[in-house]
């Protein structure tokens, strides 16, 4: 018996070695922008895939920020060393479509991999609406998020506000912030009512939330965008509110970027803030540790304006065409694997990014996840209740990363008092128009 099992081991080892020699696994390079904790979750997903697929080896690389990843992809393409799959943020969609290097995932799945079992209708409508251009899905939705309002319920109670009735309009936001602001004896603000990092994304979302467009031609979806609407009332109105609240001393301006505002909110220096839904888990944990009650709500909008909704943010996975067919098929295997329910649920519960498929959402509904995590439910309902229109479908702009920066500068100029909100946004719109013209002329 012993001898026999020993022999078995020998045979097994031999077979293993042999098969390894006979069949080199196909290696797929996957570049992503998930650092820190989220990066570890990506690695876990990749390990799971590699363990269950002997013939494919996915090598995941964190290539820095979203912007770094886009930059490195460009450079790699020019030097012929592009990865197979790359994670690109939502505002890189148009530039990827124009790049001439990608293969739309729908083409990849249907024609290259001939995968007839894949259900193309499995994605949540707001998600597939964003990434569907020219009648097909071009990239695989992966990490999706939207902004929501976070608030400290204990601070609400302290200020005599109903903790279960968060502000719903711009006017209420201002009024609540005023009540929530605490000044010390020396006149310095100890706690601000509200804070918001200077990030272009929030302006885009606030415009969509008023069911308004960011650029012409149906947000650049019926034809290339040629004109920006940043100088129109929906955008300007929000900048004006921002300016007024900061000037009044009821809103903390933490500067450009995400960190300052987050830090202020988490350390109790601000009672309300708007942040990505990807932070729900993080914020909830933090509230638990610091002993206060966290509330979440839909984004406010100006009184008397039609409700639009939020646009899906985050990133999607693109396949690069210039690889052997065998490798492209392997890339498809991996992409398709990520959309399976098990992976989606794991991703969602660990990172806070939305699951992108209907099946995963149903699973979470049935499994009481949302009942136990009401803040996740807020995030989700806001997305599902958003009106379907070009406004909430999201804009397609070739120079979107630059546009975002122009908007951020305009906000800064307004807050510093260099320009009025209207002047700043007029200037921003002019700069965007110029950048669109230059970009479009390359593709005439």
């Amino acid at each position, binding site marked *: 018996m012993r001898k026999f099992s020993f022999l078995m081991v020998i045979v097994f080892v031999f077979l293993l070695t042999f098969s390894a020699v006979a069949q080199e696994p196909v290696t797929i390079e996957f570049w992503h922008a998930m650092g820190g904790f989220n990066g570890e979750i990506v690695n876990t997903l990749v390990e799971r895939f590699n363990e269950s697929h002997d013939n494919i080896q996915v090598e995941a690389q964190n290539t*820095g920020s979203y912007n770094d990843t886009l930059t490195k992809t460009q450079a790699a393409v020019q*030097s012929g060393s592009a990865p197979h799959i790359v994670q690109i943020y939502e505002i890189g969609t148009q530039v990827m479509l124009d790049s001439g290097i990608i293969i739309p995932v729908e083409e990849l799945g249907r024609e290259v991999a001939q995968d007839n079992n894949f259900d193309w209708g499995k994605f949540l409508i707001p998600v597939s609406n964003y990434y569907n251009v020219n009648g097909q899905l071009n990239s695989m939705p992966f990490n999706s998020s939207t902004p929501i309002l976070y608030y400290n319920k204990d601070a609400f109670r302290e200020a005599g506000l109903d903790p279960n009735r968060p502000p719903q309009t711009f006017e209420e936001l201002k009024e609540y912030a005023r009540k929530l602001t605490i000044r010390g004896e020396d006149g310095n603000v100890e706690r601000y009512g509200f804070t918001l990092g200077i990030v272009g994304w929030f302006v885009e979302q606030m415009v969509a939330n008023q069911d308004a467009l960011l650029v012409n031609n149906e947000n650049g979806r019926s034809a290339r965008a040629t004109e920006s609407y940043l100088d129109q009332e929906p955008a300007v109105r929000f900048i004006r509110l921002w300016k007024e609240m900061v000037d009044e001393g009821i809103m903390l301006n933490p500067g450009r970027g995400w960190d300052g505002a987050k830090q202020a909110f988490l350390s109790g220096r601000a009672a309300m803030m708007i942040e990505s839904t990807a932070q729900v888990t993080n914020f909830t944990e933090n509230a638990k540790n610091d002993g206060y009650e966290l509330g979440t709500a839909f984004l406010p909008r100006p009184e008397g304006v039609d409700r639009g909704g939020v646009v899906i943010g985050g990133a999607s996975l693109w396949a690069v065409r210039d690889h052997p067919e065998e490798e492209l098929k392997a890339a498809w295997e991996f992409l398709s694997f990520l959309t399976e329910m098990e992976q989606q649920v794991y991703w969602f519960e660990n990172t806070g990014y939305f699951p992108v498929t209907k099946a995963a959402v149903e699973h979470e509904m049935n499994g009481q996840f949302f009942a136990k995590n009401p803040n996740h439910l807020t995030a989700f309902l806001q997305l599902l209740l958003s009106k379907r229109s070009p406004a909430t479908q999201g804009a397609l702009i070739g120079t979107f990363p630059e546009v975002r920066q122009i908007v951020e500068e305009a906000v800064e100029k307004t807050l510093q008092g260099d320009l009025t909100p209207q002047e700043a946004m007029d200037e921003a719109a002019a700069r965007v128009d110029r950048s669109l013209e230059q970009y479009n002329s390359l593709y005439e």
Partner: protein
Amino acid sequence: MRKSRKDFLNKLFIHLLLIVISFIVLMPILLALSVSFQPRDQIFSYPPSLIPERLYFDNYINAWNLVNLDRLLLNSLFASIIVMFGKLALGVLSGYAFSHFEFKYKKTLFFAILFTLMLPMQVRVVPLFVFVSNLGLANTYSGLVLPFLASATTTFLMRQHFLTIPKSLMESAQLDGCGPFRFLFQILIPLSGPALAGLATVNFLVMWNAYLWPLIILNSDEMKVAQQGVKMLFTSASERDWGLIMAGTIIVVIPTIIVFLLAQKFFVKGIATQGIKE
């Protein structure tokens, strides 16, 4: 008696002044050091505490693990040592050529090298990236260090140094039948210890402190260098975790300070006096 007392007070005053200034100069490092040993709640307490309540090492452990600092430091060390020796070797050879030989186009060639003295990486980074990638060297140690190897500074300073060595040495060596390479290796180089040590320090620090090129040429986590670790700490920590970021920053800066302190004597004597005088 009175005079020496006045002298003493004078010296005491200067010492006090210098101590105060030293603290101001070192303040960024000292406060970073202090914060790196503090837990979160202490960092965000008001007024901020200058001295940690107790030595809290978690920030170091977390920073170390979060961005794989061991690997990043090893990469930086490896690349910096290669650049240090490589630059020195190339610089010694070409500096020797310009100090001890007369040849056609000497002036032109010298100018061609000197011209690059101040040409920063930023001016040519895009084509450089494409070129290095086309050689298949993106994300490799070779791709990382090769563009750093040629150095006008090292060539120039080695030449200046070699020129200071008495000419009589050469004549006698030549009379003894000593060939040009033997002369270099057996006479010139042994005479140049301090200058070489000084230049080695500079070159080590140039690579260790480089940021833009590694940022562009390296992709995978296991290839990245320590300076990128600093930026990664800013982006990886879920919110600005100052204790952790400062702990990582301290870890990255310690080797540079050690190298500098060890070689300070050579560096200050060898380079500073020569760079200007000639």
